[in-house]
C-alpha cells in the first residue's frame, strides 16, 4: 500500500504554553478507512488540520504524497486532501447550496462547464441534487453536514478527512452519512473519520488510531484496539456495547464487535 500522508515526530501548539501535539508519527496508506478516537481536547482536530496544511508543524514534518506541507498552500493540497470541519457552520458561507459547493472549483479556476459538472456530481453523491437553490442556513444540521461534504467532494480529493461527521444527526441522518462515506471509500477514496461513536468505529473502520493528550497511544484494527481496556479508559473511550456485553458474559475471544457478528455467534444465524 503506498503512503499518502506521513507524520514524522510532529509537534504543534496554539498560543498557550502547553503543546497540543507531542511527537506524532504515523503513515496513512492509500485506500485506508481510518477512525481517530480519543478524549475531548486530545488533539484529534489539531492532527486532522495538519493533513491538508491548515496547520503546519512547529517541529517535525507532515508530507502529502512525499511533499512537505510547509512547501504547499492549502489550495494546492486540496487537490489531494480535503478536511471537513467539526461544525459545518464554520465552513458554510454562501447564499445557496450550489454557490457553496462551486466555491472551491471556481477558486481553482476551472472552466464553467467543468464546474457545473463537478458540482452536480458532488451534490448527487450526497443526495442533494434537488437542493442546489436552497439556502444552507435554513436547512437541517444533517443537510448542512452533507453540503459541507459535497463542497469538499467538488475538489475531487483522494483523501477525505471528516471531523465528527455524524455529530448532532438523528439516527437516519447518521446512517445516510455513513453509507455515503462507505460509498466514497468503495470508490477509491482514502477516508479518515474522527468520531466519538464506537459503533461507527466497530462497523466501518479498518484501522483505529487512539489519541491521548497529544500522542498516539494505540494504532491497530478495531479488534486489537478494543482489547486494550487500560489504554481506552485513559483515552476516555468506552468500547461498543456489543463488545462489553461479550466481555461481561465471558464469551470466548475473538469477541464480536458488531450486532450482526454477535447474533451470528450466539444463534448461529446470520442476517
Amino acid at each position, binding site marked *: 500500500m503506498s503512503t499518502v500522508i506521513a507524520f514524522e515526530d510532529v509537534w504543534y501548539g496554539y498560543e498557550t504554553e502547553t503543546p497540543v501535539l507531542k511527537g506524532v508519527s504515523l503513515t496513512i496508506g492509500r485506500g485506508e478507512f481510518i477512525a481517530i478516537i480519543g*478524549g*475531548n481536547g486530545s488533539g484529534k482536530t489539531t492532527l486532522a488540520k495538519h493533513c491538508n496544511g491548515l496547520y503546519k508543524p512547529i517541529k517535525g514534518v507532515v508530507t502529502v504524497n512525499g511533499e512537505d506541507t510547509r512547501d504547499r498552500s492549502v489550495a494546492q493540497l486540496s487537490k489531494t486532501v480535503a478536511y471537513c470541519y467539526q461544525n459545518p457552520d464554520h465552513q458554510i458561507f454562501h447564499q445557496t447550496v450550489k454557490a457553496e459547493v462551486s466555491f472551491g472549483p471556481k477558486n481553482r479556476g476551472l472552466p464553467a462547464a467543468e464546474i457545473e459538472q463537478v458540482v452536480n456530481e458532488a451534490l448527487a453523491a450526497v443526495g442533494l441534487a434537488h437542493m442546489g437553490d436552497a439556502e444552507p442556513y435554513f436547512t437541517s444540521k444533517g443537510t448542512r453536514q452533507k453540503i459541507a461534504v459535497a463542497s469538499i467532494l467538488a475538489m475531487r480529493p483522494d483523501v477525505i478527512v471528516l471531523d*465528527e461527521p455524524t*455529530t*448532532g444527526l438523528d439516527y437516519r441522518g447518521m446512517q445516510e452519512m455513513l453509507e455515503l462515506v462507505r460509498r466514497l471509500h468503495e470508490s477509491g477514496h482514502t477516508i479518515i473519520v474522527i468520531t*466519538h461513536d464506537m459503533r461507527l468505529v466497530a462497523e466501518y473502520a479498518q484501522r483505529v488510531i487512539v489519541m491521548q493528550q497529544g500522542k498516539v497511544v494505540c494504532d491497530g484494527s478495531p479488534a486489537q484496539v478494543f482489547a486494550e481496556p487500560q489504554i481506552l479508559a485513559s483515552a476516555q*473511550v468506552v468500547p461498543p456495547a456489543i463488545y462489553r*456485553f461479550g466481555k461481561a*458474559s465471558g464469551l470466548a475471544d475473538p469477541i464480536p464487535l458488531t*450486532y450482526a457478528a454477535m447474533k451470528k455467534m450466539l444463534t448461529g444465524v446470520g442476517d
Partner: protein
Amino acid sequence: MKKEPLLQAREVHWQYEDTAAPSLANVNLDLYPGEVVGVVGPAAAGKTTLLLTLSGLIPANYAGHFVGERKTHAELGIVFQDPETQFIGLTVEEELAFSLENAGFTDTQIEHRIGEVLELVGLKGFAERSPFELSGGEKQRVAIASALSHAPQVLLLDEPTSELDPLGAREVFSLVRRLKQENEMTIVVSSHATEELASFCDRIILVAEGRIVLDLPVREFFSQVDILDTHGIFVPEVIRLYFMLREAGVLPEMPDVLPLDVEELSRLYREAQLVREGSW
C-alpha cells in the same frame, strides 16, 4: 402519594412566525421533583422547541403564535444545543460569572462556585482560557458548567453530550443522576444517545412532528420497539440483542423485565447459561 408537579404544560400549541405548520401541537406534560426525563425524536421533530417552551423562552423571546398554558414556580436552567452561539465572556471564568451574577451570588461565592463546577465537568485549569478557543467537547462542557453553576431546580439540557467523548458523556449523565438524588433536581435532557438515556433516565418522551407520541417509564418506553423503529429512533443494541436472544430461545421468556444496560443483559445471559448447563 405523588408530589406536586414543578412544571406543567397544558394543550400547548406553538407556531414560529412565517412557518407553514405548528412546531408543537397538543402538548401536555407534568414534570415532578427528582425526575430525569429523556426527550427523543428525529431531526426537526420539535425537541428543541419543546425545551424552549418548557423554559418559557417560547413565547417570551420568539415570534410566533402560542396557545395553551405553561406553569412553573421553579427556578430553571438551560443548556442550548449550540453552546458556542451563546458565549459572551472573554474567559471561561467570565462566562460562568455572568450567570452567577444574574442569579445574585456574591463575589466570593462566585469564585468558589466556578472552581467547583469546572471540576465537576472536567475542566479544572480552564478558567483563564477563551471559551471560543476550545475543542468542540470542551465548549460543550463550559455550557454545562454554566447551567449547573446556580443549581436550578429544573435543568433543561438540549443534546448536551453530542460532542463529548464516550467517558465524558457518561460522566455528564452520572452527574445528572447525582443532582437528582442529592438535590431532588428535575432534569429534562434531549439526546440521540439512546444507550445513555436507557441507563440514566427514569422516563422518556418521544416527540414526532411536534406531538408527544410516547411518554413512559424507561423500561416500558424501550419495549415499544416497533413504534421507535417507525420514527427512526435507534433502539440500543443491548435491547435489540435481548429481544433477538429471546426469540432465538437463548434467553427464557420469563422473567419479562427489559434489561437496560450491558450488565443487566449479561446477568440474564449468564443465568440462562447456568440453567442450560444444570439441565444436562
